[in-house]
């Protein structure tokens, strides 16, 4: 993610935890809080909380045990973009997207994308999920 997208003067929140399932409740609580304060309707708040949980759970499964789980929330008018990322032990780690959880994630979010980045210049390979959720019901 480029700095231009992150630092555009709008509300951005980043949460970094150890990549462990035990800390996902903290991240989904942040998601829920941000959606509520951004005037999301109650269904959309519930959907975002669940979508963030599914995304983080998928990433933690693929993460190197010593990885950080980085979750960035870009709060925009009428929508929130979430970018979650972990470091992987191997450069060719791929997320399993043939799971029930992944289908649920696709249903909950308006748009979901998997992002793989091979490690370069001594940095570890990462795998991430970007998801968008709008404040209210949108036609699908």
């Amino acid at each position, binding site marked *: 993610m480029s700095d231009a997208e992150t630092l555009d003067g709008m509300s951005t929140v980043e949460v970094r935890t150890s990549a462990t399932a*035990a800390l996902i*409740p903290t991240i989904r609580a942040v998601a829920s809080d941000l959606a509520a304060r951004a005037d999301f309707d109650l269904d959309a708040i519930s959907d975002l909380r669940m979508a963030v949980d*599914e995304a983080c759970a998928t990433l933690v499964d693929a993460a190197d045990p010593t990885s950080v789980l980085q979750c960035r929330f870009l709060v925009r008018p009428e929508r929130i973009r979430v970018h979650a990322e972990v470091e992987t032990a191997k450069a060719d780690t791929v997320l399993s997207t043939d799971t*029930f959880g992944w289908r649920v994630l696709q249903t*909950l979010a308006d748009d979901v994308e998997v992002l793989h980045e091979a490690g370069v210049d001594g940095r570890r390979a990462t795998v991430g999920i970007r998801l968008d959720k709008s404040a209210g019901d949108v036609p699908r």
Partner: protein
Amino acid sequence: MSDAAPDPFGVGLPLDTQLSRPRPGSVLLAVDGEIDTLTAARLQAGVDEAVEAARADGASVVADLSGVTFLASSGLAVLIGAARRLAELGGRLHLVAASRAVTRPLQVTGADALFDIHDDVTSALATARFPDVAPPPGEVGR
């Protein structure tokens, strides 16, 4: 994971399940807490016990999810699995689901069609019977 794990968050959030028999022919599984990838195993254990009671005693199963404040796909999968096993036995899984934290995931995923969903325990127990498919004549309209 060791019992002496030093990490206070290691086992996830509390999730309590309690099995009771509020009336003959029904088992009630009360679930309280957040159901996610870590706590789903505890839900699974409670659900297994309830389904076993249905199988052994011909009891209907009501899962009271009134105290559930979060339901992830891992929890949904446990409930769906239980509904399938009960269906094989001729029963239905009755859920008490009143809060959005439970009803929304059921609705969004379409899983609500797999369960009999009730607003409160009283109405769930009044309706739940086992087997559900063909109640004996004396039971109809009770």
